[in-house]
C-alpha cells in the first residue's frame, strides 16, 4: 500500500513530529478554545496567531461517511484500488475531520457511524501518517 509521502513544512512540522512519535497533536486556540486541523497560520475563528499552541488530543472519532476510490488520479495509489476513503470526525470536536483509508476494513464495508481510533502507519523511513481503525 504505497501512500504518498507528506512533506512537512515549517507550519506542519510540529504536527508531523508528533505523528512520528505516535501522538496526535492539533493546533488549539486558547482564546477561542477551538481545535483546528490542518494547521494554519492563525486561528480561523479569531484570526489571531497569538493564542495558537499544539495540544495533544485523544485519537477517537467516528465515521461520518465514506467513498471507495475505484479510478483515482494518483499514480502511487492506483495499485491499491479499490480502497476506502472515509471522512472521520474527531470526538473531541466533531468540526475537525480527517481522511482515513480505514486499515483493516475491506472496501465497501465501512460501517458509517462506527467508532474509530487513531493508529499510525509508516509511509517512508522515519515518516508515519495518522490513520483510523474501526474499534472492535
Amino acid at each position, binding site marked *: 500500500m*504505497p*501512500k*504518498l*509521502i*507528506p*512533506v*512537512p*513544512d515549517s507550519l*506542519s512540522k510540529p504536527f508531523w513530529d508528533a505523528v512520528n512519535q505516535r501522538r496526535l497533536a492539533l493546533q488549539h486556540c486558547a482564546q477561542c478554545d477551538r481545535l*483546528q*486541523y*490542518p494547521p494554519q497560520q492563525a486561528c*480561523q475563528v479569531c484570526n489571531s496567531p497569538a493564542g495558537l499552541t499544539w495540544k495533544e488530543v485523544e485519537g477517537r472519532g467516528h465515521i*461520518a*461517511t*465514506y*467513498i*471507495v*476510490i*475505484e*479510478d*483515482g*488520479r*494518483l*499514480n*502511487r*495509489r492506483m495499485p*491499491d484500488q*479499490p*480502497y476506502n*476513503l472515509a*471522512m472521520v470526525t474527531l470526538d473531541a470536536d466533531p*468540526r*475537525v*475531520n*480527517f*481522511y*482515513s*483509508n480505514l486499515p483493516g476494513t475491506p472496501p*465497501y464495508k465501512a460501517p*458509517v457511524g462506527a467508532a474509530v481510533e487513531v493508529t499510525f502507519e509508516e*509511509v517512508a523511513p522515519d515518516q508515519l*501518517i495518522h490513520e483510523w481503525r474501526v474499534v472492535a
Partner: protein
Amino acid sequence: MTAPDRYQWRRDKDGLGVWEHRGKVAVAGVGHSPVDRRWDGVSMDKTLGAYSILACRKAMDEAGVSPEQIEGVICCDSHIAGGSGGSASQWAPRPYFAPPYDSEWGLTLVNAQWLIEEMRLPNVKFAPTGVPTISEMVGMAAQAVGDGLCHTCLVIYPTGNLEGRYRRGGENADDYARGARQWTAPWGNHGGNDFINIFPHGQYCLKYGGKHDDLAPFVVNQHRNGLLTPWGYNATHQVPQLTTEDYVNSRYILNPLRLWDCDRPVNASAAYLFTTTERARDMRQSPVYVLNHSQHNFRKRSTQEDLDEIEDWTDRAAKRMYEGAGLGPKDVDIFNPYDGYAPMAQFFLEGFQWHGVKRGDAFAFYAGDIRVEGPHPFCSSGGNLGNGRTRTAMYTDSIEQLRRTAGARQVRVRAETALAAFTTPSSGGWIMFGKSPG
C-alpha cells in the same frame, strides 16, 4: 492595463445591497468555437488560440462590433487542467511552430495579450491577467463596464484538453504530497470538485433519505438538453442519448460517483461581449442585461467540507445574489447552476430555492418534469454534463433563453430572468441576467 489585484471589482461580501450598475451593463454577443475532444497537436486551425479568435469574431459579428470598438479583453490564461494536467504538464518545452505559434501561447494556453496582437485590436485599455475562471471573468467584465474602465469588453474562456488522461500527470504522478496536499493526497484525495462534493452528498443522502442513483433523472436530462445544443460536444459528435439504464450501470469513479456524474474534458473556446446598456441598444442583438454579479470564497473548517458547511455557503451565496439583484427565488425563470460533477447541483438548487425547492427536496424534484418543455426546466443548458467541460453552456443558454433564441431548448415558461454560474459550493460566482434592465 489594470491589474486585477489592484482593482476591487468583486462583490464577495454579505450585505452589499443592490448592485450599483444593475441594468446598466449588457451582453450583446456570444460566440462558440467547435468543441473537440482534444487538440491533435498539428492542426493550426484547431488550436486553443485559433478557436478563441473564432469565438471572439463570432461574438463581435453577432453584436455587429468592429475590432476598433473593443476596449477590454478578459481571458483566462491558465490551463484548465492546472498543475496536474496530464501530459500537458510535460508539454513544454518542446519544438514550436511558425509565428504566432512559436511559444505555448496560442497552442494550449491563450492570454489577452496574444489575442490583442493576433486580432489586431488597437484600442484595448483594459486587459487584466490572472483572472482564472469564467465566473470571475464575467463578474469582472460587468463591473469594469459599469465602472467605466472600458465600454465594450470581450470575455474569452478557453478550455484545453490534450493527449493522455485528464489530470494524470504533474503533481498527481508525484510520490510526495506537498503543501496543502499533505493533508489529502496520502489517503487518496487527488483534489477537485469531485472530492469537495461527494462526501457532503453522502451525508445528504443519510440526512434526507434517498440514494445516489436518484441523480439519474437529472443526469439523463442534462444529456438531453445537451443534444438540443447545436454547438455542444454531444450534439456535434452524435453522442447517443444517455438512458437511466446506462447511468445506473455505468462504472464507478469514486463510488458512489459514477462515470456519468463526471463531465467530458474538451478543447474549445467561447466568447461573450459585454457593453454598456446604451451602446447595446445600437447593436445587432437584443441586449441581455446584467442585474447582478457576486462571488464567494468560503473557507472550510477542516480537511473536508461537510454538509453543514455546504448548505450554509450556498445559502449565503443565494442571499448575496438575490440581494444584489433586488430579486427573490420566485423571480428567477432560468436556473443554470454548475454541474461539473452531478452531485453538487442539488446544493445550489436548494440553496437558491428555485421553484420552491427546499433542503432535502432535490431528488423528488429531479423525479418530476424537469424537461425544457415542462414546468420546471432545470439547467436548460445541459451544462457540462450535456455539452462537455466548456464551463460556458450555463451562460450561453441563459442569454439565449432571454433572447428567445434557444431553439429546441427554448423553455415554455416565462423567461425574463436567468441565473448562471461556474462555481463550487465553496468558491466561484454567479451572474443574474434580465430581459429588461429594470
